[in-house]
């Protein structure tokens, strides 16, 4: 599990402690912040991705979906 996933899961647990009904599993959860110490910037992809984020626009206004080459 990467630091991104770990930090995301921790922040999610804190957010749940603040926002779920009932008593929080630990006191004053709203006061917690996750500090993620990183060395380089990372692209963070959500688990669902657009298949066709770009479209090609041609002269006649015809729009074709294009695939990008990775």
């Amino acid at each position: 599990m990467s630091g991104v996933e770990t930090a995301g899961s921790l922040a999610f647990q804190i957010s749940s402690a603040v926002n779920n009904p009932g008593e929080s599993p630990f006191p004053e959860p709203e006061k917690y912040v996750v500090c993620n110490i990183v060395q380089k910037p990372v692209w963070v992809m959500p688990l669902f991705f657009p298949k066709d984020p770009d479209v090609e626009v041609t002269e006649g206004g015809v729009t074709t979906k294009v695939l990008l080459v990775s």
Partner: protein
Amino acid sequence: MNLSRSRLISSQKKNPSPTFLPLDLVNYNLSWRPPGPIENTSGHVTPEGAQMVHGFMETYIGTDQTDLSKEISMTGSVRSEPPLLACSDHYTEFIRHKKIKLVTGKVTRSSLNTIEIADGFGNTQTISDIAAIVCATGFDASASLSFLPGDILEKLQFSPGSDEFPLALNVHSTVNRKIPSLGFVGFYRSPYWGVMEMQARFLSALWSGDSKSAKALEDDTTINSMLKLRQDPRRAQFPMGDYAYLMESFASILSITRQEPPSSLSDTKTGIVLPPRYLPSSASPSSQREAKLSLEIIDRIFSSSASQGKFVARAVFRALQGIWHLDRKISSKLETFPSGSLNGTASFLPRSPTEEGKDMEYLYFEEGEFRPSWGGTMSAKRR
């Protein structure tokens, strides 16, 4: 219309209504690869290769992440460096909401309640009032290899400091020519099930006396690339990350013919790399049935994504996370209740689902100033 002319003046813009798919069904598309045998695109990353992947990520993610925080901004010299990727549904919006704070640097000192971080340019900062420290600093395979006797480790050129390739192995990290009776499956960073299956098939063919597999081991050059990558500062994040190449390479050694989608033309490479497309001819009827079933399920996923907007709601719902500006005009039909305008914020705060079987849930909360048409202001809140 002149095709080349129209192509010249065509331009790309953001698709206002893209279709969505699970991440793995967007990547690894064979039709994106140039004609001919599939070559390895992973391992060493050139600056040009890096720029291409960074550009691809920006297109698919939709921003260069500068909008989130400068620490995660993908601009400047980083665009020529090997790209680093991670997956998370909530992380980015927690950054925007300042629930995750990014600090660039390395921890140089820590005590019970304070840590010191140096950024490599002579700047240090401290973080205090710490509740817990989590070391998400990676997995080290070297420690778990200590069960192997010293002479074997030596033959395998064991390098405990090499995170990616602690052992020197042939044929995509499966076996070393000097000890052909010792095999490894899934022994590389971030292995895929499909590749592990192929590695296991390769080993079983090798150990059953298959001459093609023996020849592949004899002629192998992947070990040379592997050893070079150990020292390479431009090594990819996942140095054996080219799933398509690995699958195709093993398929060719094992004489497995990739199954093509029924509608595709012959001699074309198309579709996503999926393990059930790579069944050996010796596969049992029940594995063949299972593979067929899996491919049908995946086909249905593609077609409902393409024609019924499947996953759009999932993608939109995820993206709601965080705090939004709220401007609402209220025109009341009840005389006793005022018309007016509400200005404030609407918050979608993630929490674990309170109903079983649900995937995602927010606490919705809005607050702001309500200005009734008859004058004055009052604060308003709603959960």
